[in-house]
């Protein structure tokens, strides 16, 4: 078969091998964490708010794998239910950052000159304020509901995505096929969505995974200082704060959410590295 | 012949596990100038860098000896090698633009070269550095000591490199295409400078070059490299008048008016030099050789002496100037036996 005009095509065989490979441990671990949170009621017999005042700060046992908190609630159960919220904020903000960042960055790359200047300088300004402080300002202004937290976190991460999207789009549109496509009268939007987007997707995806780690940290930080999710709702950050209050009584209480946050962030970083390094070469069609 | 200052014995260099320099041997008498010529990729730079012990991963010396005076440089520890490099043997590199530290003044870099081997006091070292800078023809040497490399032109930077290389009066100077990165007018100035300084100080020199004209004017002897081996070595006059190896012969005849670049000067020889790792069995030049016979493929060809030259060919070109295209008088009688003649396709 003639492969004229093709730099390198990931063949069907190669693709299959990639998908058949066992996912890396980081991804497996993330999957386990997510599934356990989603199916929390199946994993644990307790409810997140089932109190047992007779057994506060119980040590880990066959019944309570991670022990109980100050009201005798099962810690593991609370972590799993809390994880639902943490992961929701995380996922929601990643989607928001992805959508806004991609449109932001691609338009900047597409409309070089004035529009690009405006768009990218806006990104600079938002990045001149340390993220967590920016978040404080927004939370003070908008309040701290699940929705507002998700939106705020998403907006905060968007400029980073926009920068990445802009640089990969500029790289991609400088390739021959793009200018050739334009010269042959192909619509810009069509070219961008059909040809450019699939090729920059791996880079954007890698950035999105990094964003997920940042979102996780941001949400946990806000909840930890009491400006995020408000009890009785709970997230890992909230649980960490509650555990922090009982550091001297029962370190496990704080260590458990801390370790979960750590493991999740670490796995996300590893997964992002992997995604970033196994980018396919671009496919160039005649 | 007096004892050689530099005696390279069967030097082998590999990139990873792929041999690239495959057994180079040569000797350098005190004050001698040896030219090392050959196409791009033939392993000239790797040879020089290996002599200096400057190879970096994944390139490493895989065999041989480099005797400087009585010591084998390849057997020295890093600390011992540091006492030799820059003091007894120095090197000038191809690209003067990147070979000087951009953040240090030129003076500091020359003073460093002096102080690493000669612990003289600061004012004295600076005075010596200024003298050196003057010697290599940099105007206003005292002021220029405080200038940074980017404030020099390419030719001036290469002069600084020469000053650094000669700072401690080495016995041997290796020059790896010292003028390739310079413009044409500067090239001859720099070569003349090296020429003059090396004669004055009696420094033995290896000059790696693409420019056969430069080699002709500068060198006492020339070694021709092909695919990581020497294929011919003889005195400059002999080589130009009478190259015996088909490869060097093609080089020389393509360079009638001298001054032609080896990289581009091989219209007479079709084809590409073999890549490391894909070198053919027997004679490595065989695929491109107009004189090749089946016997050339049998086994590695040895470098043998022939009328005062060293030639790696079983069918060298005749020493008779007019008959270069005929089968030559072979050093090896076996080639001219009827059996061997039969194996030649067009004999």
């Amino acid at each position, binding site marked *: 078969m003639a492969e004229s005009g093709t730099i390198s095509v990931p063949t069907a065989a190669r693709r299959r091998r990639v998908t058949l490979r066992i996912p890396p441990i980081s991804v497996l671990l993330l999957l386990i964490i997510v599934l356990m949170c989603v199916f929390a009621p199946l994993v644990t017999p307790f409810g997140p708010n089932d109190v047992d005042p007779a057994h506060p700060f119980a040590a880990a046992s066959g019944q309570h794998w991670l022990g109980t908190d100050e009201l005798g609630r099962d810690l593991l159960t609370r972590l799993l239910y809390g994880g639902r919220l943490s992961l929701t904020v995380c996922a929601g903000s990643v989607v928001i950052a992805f959508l806004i960042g991609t449109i932001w960055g691609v338009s900047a790359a597409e409309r070089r000159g004035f529009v690009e200047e405006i768009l990218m300088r806006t990104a600079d300004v938002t990045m001149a304020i340390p993220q967590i402080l920016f978040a404080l300002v927004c939370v003070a202004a908008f309040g701290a509901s699940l929705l507002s937290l998700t939106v705020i976190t998403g907006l905060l991460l968007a400029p980073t995505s926009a920068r990445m999207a802009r640089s990969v789009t500029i790289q991609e549109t400088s390739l021959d096929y793009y200018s050739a496509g334009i010269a042959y009268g192909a619509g810009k939007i069509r070219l961008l969505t059909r040809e450019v987007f699939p090729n920059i997707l791996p880079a954007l995806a890698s950035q999105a995974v990094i964003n997920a780690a940042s979102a996780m940290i941001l949400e946990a930080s806000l909840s930890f200082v009491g400006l995020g999710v408000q009890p009785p709702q709970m997230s890992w950050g909230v649980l960490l704060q509650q555990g922090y209050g009982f550091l*001297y009584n029962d370190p496990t209480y704080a260590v458990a959410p801390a370790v979960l946050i750590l493991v999740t962030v670490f796995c996300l970083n590893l997964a992002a590295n992997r995604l970033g390094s196994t980018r396919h070469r671009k496919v160039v069609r005649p | 012949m007096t004892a050689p200052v530099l005696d390279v014995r069967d030097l082998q260099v590999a990139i990873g596990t792929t041999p690239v320099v495959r057994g180079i041997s040569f000797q350098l008498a005190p004050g001698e100038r040896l030219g090392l010529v050959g196409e791009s990729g033939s392993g000239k730079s790797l040879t020089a860098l290996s002599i200096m012990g400057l190879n970096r991963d994944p390139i490493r010396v895989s065999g041989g000896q480099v005797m400087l005076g009585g010591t084998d440089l390849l057997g020295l520890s890093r600390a011992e090698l540091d006492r030799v490099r820059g003091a007894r043997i120095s090197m000038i590199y191809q690209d003067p633009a990147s070979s000087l530290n951009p953040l240090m003044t030129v003076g500091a870099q020359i003073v460093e070269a002096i102080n690493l081997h000669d612990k003289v006091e600061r004012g004295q070292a600076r005075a010596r550095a200024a003298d050196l800078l003057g010697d290599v023809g940099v105007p206003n040497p005292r002021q220029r000591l405080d200038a940074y490399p980017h404030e020099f032109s390419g030719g001036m930077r290469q002069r600084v490199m020469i000053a650094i290389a000669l700072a401690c009066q080495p016995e041997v100077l290796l020059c790896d295409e010292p003028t390739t990165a310079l413009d044409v007018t500067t090239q001859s100035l720099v070569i003349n400078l090296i020429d003059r300084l090396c004669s004055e100080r009696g420094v033995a020199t290896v000059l790696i070059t693409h420019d056969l004209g430069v080699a002709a004017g500068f060198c006492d002897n020339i070694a021709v490299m092909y695919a990581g081996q020497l294929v011919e070595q003889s005195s400059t006059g002999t080589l130009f008048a009478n190259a015996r190896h088909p490869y060097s012969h093609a080089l020389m005849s393509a360079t009638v008016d001298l001054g032609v670049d080896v990289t581009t000067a091989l219209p007479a020889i079709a084809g590409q030099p073999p890549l490391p790792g894909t070198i053919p069995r027997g004679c490595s030049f065989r695929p491109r050789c107009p004189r090749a016979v089946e016997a050339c493929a049998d086994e590695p060809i040895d470098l043998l002496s022939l009328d005062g030259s060293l030639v790696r060919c079983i069918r060298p070109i005749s020493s008779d100037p007019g008959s270069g295209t005929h089968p030559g008088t072979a050093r090896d009688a076996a080639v001219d036996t009827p059996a061997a003649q039969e194996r030649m396709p067009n004999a």
Partner: protein
Amino acid sequence: MQFVIKRVVISAILLVATSVLIFAILRALPGDPVAARLGTAQGVNQAMIDRLRSSAGLDRPLVSQYFSWVAGMTHGNLGRSYFTDRQVSSMILSALGPTLELTVLGVALSVLVAVPAAMAAARRPRGWLDRSITAIASAGMAFPPFVAGILLIIVFSITVHWFPARGFIPLTQDPVQNLRSMILPSISLAAGAAPLILRYLRSELVTALNSDYVRTAAGKGAPERRVMLRHALPNAALPSLTMIGLITGYTLGGSVVVEYVFGFSGLGALSVQAAFRRDYAVLQSVVLLISALFILVSLTVDLLGWWLDPRTRGHRG
């Protein structure tokens, strides 16, 4: 010189834009600080709210509010807290110490750890030492400052009693105790910050060690140590200076939660408190001040890099 002017102007514009952004978010949006303050109190009537609003200047147009904030800033008057009625400037002044010290120590510690580690790693790229250091660095990057802080407290304050778990002791009061109280917080910040410098510097060092001028230095007979310290490190450090700016931003942001963990009453804690109380007067100034510090440090390191590089600075310019 052109570079310096351009850089300074850009930073100034950035600062102004930042102040507009902070102000806009806090004012243009729903939520009234006065109502928030009085909301739970009994017997609040509209007259009281209006009086408070006008005394805080909240009844004036937004643009005029913005300019009076900025104008006040130029002579150190940042207005009064809506909540405590204290001068914002004096609140900030008393909170500045812990945050500055934390930031300086956090950045210093990061550099102190990252530079030698980067040199050790870059000596043999992909060697076992390089791999171990890189692995530790990626683990460190997963430690958000507050998680690191809590774990450190559990280990070093609760399990073994080496360092205090909470509280800031001013340097002027007791330098030794001050340092003891700063150690865990600084490590919490450096855990995430040092890997950022390390990664960047390491890759710059690998490039430098592969450069021609390093080969020249080795060819002169310079020992490995000297090649590294005199030739490779300066050339690698120069582009890595930008990372100091980045780390400062990270550290300033991290101090918000780290101060909370260690019970410091610094700018971070002040901003959290102000956000809680919707005390916009305090919040806007604190956040702007921290952003200004970040912008200033980034500008400084950029200019420092420009000045240290003879190619950009020009000959003895």
